[in-house]
């Protein structure tokens, strides 16, 4: 089975529709997704080749229960062990994997769970990624907050008690310029202790600029590491260039960022191969930059505005759990974030085993925190959401739920140096 991603919005002109269909149906109308375009910095790095060749060779059907049990007994989890833990042969050993994952989590993080919230400041986008609510052909309400509005949103969020924020934009350099994002970081420093970014990939000097503005963590989702599939999903825009995106974390580290986060969007392609590649991407980069703080996210596909049917296909909660436990056993020191795409029940369970960070008080829309936080009716325009969330808990509810599970919520464990 496949997701039916392609939707023709009524707002599109005949010319736009014609172009959209051409991109969708005619591969030769699309650019080469492996060739850098103008202005994209090319760094020398062998990490992409290493990750892709491991992924290519990965035949998960060859692993057996014996390999899985051996992996669970080894003192250190090798790449080969990790491959076994991600294989179908490991599915019957989920409880054993959970127990080992819990031990590793406790060794490195004790019983702490970090809480943060994302803040979308603009949803304009120049990419056509067919599964994403922000894609340039999707008929949604577009918006970009001005600085006053950004500050207002931040003050509403900060009042709730939140101390860590992740600033997001759609991927449009023309609508959300580097300077605009930098100003948002400076404003965020006034209200929050820790500022992360999830915006379009930029060059090393641009990451340095954003770091100087107050951001210290950069998240870039590769979405899928399967180049062939990537090419079919990202039809237009700078995001189409696979290697430029892949090397974003390395440029961020070279630009002085303290930490970087990685993710595949599970459900887009073969999830076992994508999970392998995601963790290896983090693993090899941390070996090359040992001071880097690395973390992994594990989002599954969600429905979007104008396409309610999008779903993560064969990545059910059991498979997602297997991936998260394998991540934890392979990279015991890495942060693992589980987003509000997942249910309250799932997140309550997973923070006790392997996840170290959860979001709360989440909106993936633009400019609607006051109405969502206070329950008052929205005044003025708002921008539509990137995807539908599942766990809608507020900051205070999340805080008390984590505490009642015997875990220690942590709002900040960071200094900007």
């Amino acid at each position: 089975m496949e997701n039916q991603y392609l939707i023709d919005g009524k707002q599109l002109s005949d010319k736009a529709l014609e172009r959209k269909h051409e991109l969708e149906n005619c591969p030769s109308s699309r650019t080469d997704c492996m060739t850098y375009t103008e202005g994209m910095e090319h760094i020398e790095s062998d990490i992409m080749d290493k990750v892709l060749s491991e992924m290519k060779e990965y035949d998960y059907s060859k692993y057996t229960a014996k390999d899985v049990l051996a992996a669970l007994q080894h003192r250190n989890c090798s790449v080969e062990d990790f491959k076994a833990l991600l294989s179908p042969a490991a599915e019957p050993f989920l409880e054993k994997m959970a127990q080992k994952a819990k031990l590793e989590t406790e060794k490195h993080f004790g019983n702490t769970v970090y809480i943060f919230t994302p803040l979308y400041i603009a949803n304009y986008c120049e990419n056509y990624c067919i599964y994403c609510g922000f894609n340039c052909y999707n008929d949604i309400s577009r918006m970009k907050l001005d600085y006053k509005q950004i500050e207002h949103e931040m003050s509403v969020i900060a009042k709730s008690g939140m101390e860590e924020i992740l600033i997001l934009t759609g991927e449009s350099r023309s609508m959300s310029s580097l300077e605009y994002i930098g100003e948002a970081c400076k404003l965020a420093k006034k209200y929050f202790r820790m500022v992360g970014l999830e915006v379009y990939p930029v060059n090393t000097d641009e990451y340095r600029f954003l770091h100087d503005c107050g951001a210290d963590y950069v998240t870039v989702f590769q979405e899928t590491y399967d180049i062939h599939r990537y090419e079919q999903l990202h039809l237009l825009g700078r995001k189409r260039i696979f290697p430029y995106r892949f090397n974003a974390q390395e440029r961020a580290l070279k630009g002085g960022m303290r930490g970087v986060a990685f993710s595949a969007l599970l459900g887009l392609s073969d999830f076992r191969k994508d999970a392998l590649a995601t963790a290896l991407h983090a693993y090899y980069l941390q070996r090359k930059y040992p001071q880097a703080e690395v973390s992994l996210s594990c989002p599954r596909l969600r429905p979007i505005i104008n396409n309610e049917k999008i779903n993560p296909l064969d990545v059910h909660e059991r498979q997602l759990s297997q991936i998260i436990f394998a991540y934890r056993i392979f990279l015991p020191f890495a942060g693992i974030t589980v987003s509000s795409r997942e249910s309250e029940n799932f997140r309550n369970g997973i923070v006790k085993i392997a996840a170290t960070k959860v979001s709360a008080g989440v909106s993936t829309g633009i400019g609607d925190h006051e109405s969502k936080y206070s329950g008052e009716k929205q005044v003025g325009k708002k921008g539509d959401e990137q995807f539908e969330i599942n766990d809608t808990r507020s900051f205070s509810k999340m805080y008390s739920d984590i505490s009642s599970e015997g875990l220690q919520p942590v709002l900040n464990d960071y200094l900007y140096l």
Partner: protein
Amino acid sequence: MNDVLEIGGHKFNSRFILGSGKYSLNLIESAVKDAGAEIITLAVRRANTKEKENILDYIPKNVTLLPNTSGARNADEAVRIARLARELGCGDFVKIEIMRDTKYLLPDNPETVKATEILAKEGFVVMPYMYPDLNFARDLVNAGAAAIMPLASPIGSNKGLATKEFIQILIDEIDLPVIVDAGIGRPSQACEAMEMGAAAIMANTALATAGDLPLMASAFKLAIDAGRKAYLSGLGRVLTRGASSSDPLTGFLHD
């Protein structure tokens, strides 16, 4: 018996330094009590919080704070964090932690020496976390450290005295208190380090991952006391094999 631990001119009766970062804040008070601890470490970056759940609010007032510089990647960052700790009202003690590796969190000895020198001159009571290396330990003494804190094994690993032989060399050669830090997973390992002549033990994860944290805190206290007493009493020799007659080689000497 008056057996005090003296660090930078400050006197302590307890030889158990407690960590605070990996367990519930509301357990800190009982952990301190059951451990009989007089010094507790805290990460300055964890105390860098606005209102709710500031770790500083949970630490009993009669305990000496030992703020650490975790998060520092070089001497300059450690110095800045130490100064911030002073501004936050954490006192003059500082535990220097400088790591350039997020996987094992092993300390960077050369940078630690640099930070120790700067902070000791500024009047801090400097307690550097270090990889047990005699040359660097001597450098730390010369830089003005008040104690040295060699690691037993990687932080959080609970693997015990993996660096035992090297810690013993530091105990034998360094005239400052040698406080074994990181990797101590069981009371028996803490006891062993104390028998060797360590001045004190620092533990965090071993308690945080215990089923009953206050009970484990008290187990560590007993083990540390036992090890200390054994050290002070002078350990008897341990035979590697067999029994021994009284003078097997020199029995022929009659005069």
